[in-house]
């Protein structure tokens, strides 16, 4: 697979289809990989593919430094490819401005990452080239995909509150979560708006709940649960639980999974007259 990947990258760079390839390179130890940005055909051997390729490289599509490199080819797993679909729907990239190197993936991380446990996009749902075998994506039952939440949803109200307060207390508002998130692409995050200052940006606990709830809410119907926010959080807040909860509600109520079908309307920019309203008096 690695060979096929390198060959394809080389070909794309040589015939100038793209000017850069975003991919995974070997890291400082065998259990690590790092993002690499290959601009010269002769450097394609830096590319690798293994079970340590956990990152979602699509985040580099929003960064000025990497944008400057020109039209990219980007190595994406099935999950990452969903991000691309969201980004396209949200007018952040055009389909023709990115070359998608999909890789079929049986799960990453050691131990296996949480996001891979109920994966039903082993083969990306969108790509220009597929590296690896094309597998069948069997859709898993709803409950199975959100099983991770059960434990937390079953807590009592008080336990829930205490659990999250303990988590949010730790937050130092470093914003690593939003920096890494490929879908947090605003030029100016709401937390940076100071006229008025809706959310206190300073590094103390006040506003922590507001920040974390708002961050999660802004990903409702958008987040594809790549878990990058959680991975980079220096104080280990299980941020993806919030994202996943919202994904669950969006799917349950709107029958919508972000980045799953490119033709679906974005959940939070449309409505159905028959949407659930059991909770409305």
């Amino acid at each position, binding site marked *: 697979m690695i060979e096929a990947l390198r060959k394809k990258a080389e070909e794309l760079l040589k015939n100038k289809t793209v000017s850069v390839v975003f991919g995974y390179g070997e890291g400082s130890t065998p259990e690590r990989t790092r993002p690499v940005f290959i601009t010269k055909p002769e450097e394609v051997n830096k590319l690798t593919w293994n079970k340590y390729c956990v990152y979602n490289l699509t985040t580099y599509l929003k960064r000025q430094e990497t944008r400057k490199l020109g039209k990219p080819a980007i190595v994406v797993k099935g999950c990452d490819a969903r991000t691309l679909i969201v980004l396209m729907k949200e007018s952040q990239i055009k389909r023709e401005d990115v070359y998608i190197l999909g890789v079929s993936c049986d799960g990453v991380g050691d131990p296996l990452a949480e996001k891979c446990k109920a994966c039903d996009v082993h083969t990306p749902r969108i790509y220009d080239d597929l590296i690896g075998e094309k597998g069948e994506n069997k859709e898993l039952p709803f409950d199975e995909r959100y099983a991770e939440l059960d434990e*937390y*949803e079953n*807590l009592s*109200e*008080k*336990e*829930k*509150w*205490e*659990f*999250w*307060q303990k988590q*949010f*207390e730790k937050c130092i508002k470093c914003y690593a979560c939003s920096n890494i998130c490929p879908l947090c692409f605003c030029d100016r995050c*709401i937390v940076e708006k*100071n*006229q*008025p*200052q*809706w*959310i*206190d940006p*300073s590094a*103390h*606990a*006040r*506003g*922590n*709940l*507001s920040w974390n*709830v*708002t961050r*999660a*809410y802004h990903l*409702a*119907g958008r987040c594809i649960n790549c878990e990058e926010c959680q991975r980079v959080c220096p104080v280990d807040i299980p941020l993806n639980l*919030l994202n996943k*909860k*919202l994904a669950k*509600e*969006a799917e349950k*109520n*709107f029958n919508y999974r972000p980045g799953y079908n490119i033709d679906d309307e974005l*959940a*939070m920019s*449309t*409505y*159905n*007259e028959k*949407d*659930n*309203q059991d*909770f*409305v*008096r």
Partner: protein
Amino acid sequence: MSNETTFEPRIVAFLCNWCTYAGADLAGTGRKQYQANVRIIKLPCTGGIDPLFLIKAFERGADGILVSGCHPGDCHYNSGNYHARRRWNVFKPLLEFCGINPDRIQFSWISAAEGGKWVETINSVIDAVRVLGPFEGYQKINAIGPEGPGEGFAPSSDTTGCECK
């Protein structure tokens, strides 16, 4: 706040201009009495209510929130309430997931003709929150800073966040 005095809940209600605000007016015109624990903020449409507003109200010491607008199909702007309902469908479970009691954040459809329903609804929200007690959890975490609501009303300064003028 001392626990010995009876707890009076603080409710902030975000109402759309065309239906519920008018419904609340109608309750007044009909001299229908209800509890005074509510402060109303009027916006053109429930579709224009950002969940940030609700979070902010909690930050400022609200014990409960009511968001209310036109019945489905009756929105002055045709679809504003439908979009709002979508948001609530994810936002309310999110807050519940974080341990906020569902009774602290409630939603209703009240038309301009439903003065009675306004009275019923707001009274029942107030009563439900009275049972829950003060939202100390939120108020505690937000009182840490210099501008905590515990220290009384903090007026906006004329130069809030503005350095360039």
